[in-house]
């Protein structure tokens, strides 16, 4: 069939994916430390480099080239809770999960029944010695340079890492996992935390809505091309030329 049909159909699929991505961003408007997912499109050419220029010009399609996290930070707000902490942009905590080490930006920390520092999903938060921080009670507090105190007793120091090479990808449950072979990210040189504050979601409702409308309109345009190809061009070809 006509190549414009496939080009437009590929566009429909791309816009569908984009809407799905935006839907997830909007669903996470209240998720602490969330980063918006953005995508970019790429022209997809499956042609032999030796193909004729005419063929190469029409036989193209669009596909999602990739996705990335839009930079933050999300808006922080004071909570007055001693174990809430907002991280500067680019910094993450390391947590221990049954599947290995993961990273999180969600600074709503807590203390487990055994006195260890945990994140909001109950996973143990690692200290600078790559070990969990224990010996805490409900009097635990965090200082701006990442020290953990229980009352006036120092109990350890938080491990705060950064991801300059952008190897992290989202896994769900507020967790990020390192894509490469080495899941040990480097600690930041100086910690500058905001205790008593909690970072909200970096998904911005206005930009998400603009992108949503944009994706919807692009979808409509592609739909018109598909519709025109199927209904008008093909019908004319069948009824007028063949008939």
């Amino acid at each position, binding site marked *: 069939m006509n190549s414009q049909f496939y080009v437009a159909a590929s566009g*429909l699929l791309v*816009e*569908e*994916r984009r*809407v*799905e*991505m*935006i*839907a*997830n*961003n*909007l*669903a*996470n*408007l*209240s*998720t*602490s430390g*969330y980063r918006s*997912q953005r*995508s970019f499109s790429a022209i997809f050419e499956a042609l032999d480099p030796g193909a004729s220029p005419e063929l190469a010009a029409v036989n193209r399609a669009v596909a*999602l080239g*990739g*996705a*990335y996290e839009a930079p933050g930070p999300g808006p922080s707000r004071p*909570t*007055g*809770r001693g174990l809430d902490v907002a991280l500067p942009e680019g910094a993450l905590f390391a947590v221990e999960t049954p599947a290995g080490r993961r990273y999180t930006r*969600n600074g*709503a920390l*807590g*203390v*487990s*029944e*055994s*006195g260890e520092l945990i994140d*909001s*999903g109950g996973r143990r938060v690692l200290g600078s010695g790559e070990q969990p921080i224990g010996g805490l*009670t*409900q*009097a635990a507090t965090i200082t701006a340079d990442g020290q953990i105190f229980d*009352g006036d007793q120092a109990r350890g120091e938080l491990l705060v890492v950064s991801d300059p090479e952008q190897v992290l*990808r*989202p*896994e*769900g*449950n*507020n967790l990020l996992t390192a*894509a490469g072979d080495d899941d040990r990210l480097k600690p930041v040189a100086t910690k500058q935390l905001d205790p008593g504050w909690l970072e909200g979601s970096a998904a911005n*409702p206005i930009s998400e*809505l603009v992108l*949503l*409308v944009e994706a*919807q309109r692009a*979808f*409509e345009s592609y*739909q018109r091309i598909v*519709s025109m190809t*199927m*209904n008008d061009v093909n019908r004319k070809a069948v009824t007028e030329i063949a008939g």
Partner: protein
Amino acid sequence: MQRAVWSAASGMQAQQLQIDTIANNLANVNTSGFKRSRAEFHDLLYQTVEAPGSPTSATTERPAGVQLGLGVATSSVKKIFSQGDMKKTDNPLDVVVEGSGFFKVLRPDGTTGYTRDGSFTTNGDGQLVSAQGYALDPPITIPSDATTVAIGRDGTVSVTQAGQTGSTEIGQIELANFINPTGLLSLGGNLFQQTSASGDPVDGTPGLEGLGELQQGFLEISNVSIVNELVDMIAAQRAYELNSRTIRTADDMMQQVNNIIR
């Protein structure tokens, strides 16, 4: 498009729960000893459409993958145990805990309930009981001929009896503390119950071992901040609208597909 609809639906559910939590906080703005709740959310699983690092030719690879998230879920509704403001009542049986610690009361089923609400009264037997009539643990009985009741900062309860000049110590109010009070189970009626997440209670004397001191004649009012709750409520309402907008958009697009063939 199905993913978009379900992601948006999970977003609407999350904001509904946010509003439910805020509504309960606001409803309890005048409940003494009430601690506000905070809903916390996390993103759901991601589906990998294109894996990062997958080869695009013999020598090149995809620098960024495509992962589609599937929405949001509630991770917890956390009680925030910050100190509430104190209200002077001049009632000698109103007590406030300045700092951490819970009063212990004996529930009818024999288990211990924990509360921050120190609005005590006496029952027919002269026992100190909570607002629901649950006796303090350990029990304290005020003699019927007592003229004044004094509760010290360390929890000692002493009375002056008719015809006597000195005061007599009749009991001691104990407090209990938890490593993780956020893990306590809210029972309603201002009561909390111990769980495996909260850890075992550590009983003690007020003012010692990190426990707060008592203050007689005051009540701890709820730690709900009306302004903060209202701001959160507006944000939740707008987020709810935006998610419903996503559903409408996805629906419109599905309709477009339906209309491809005239």
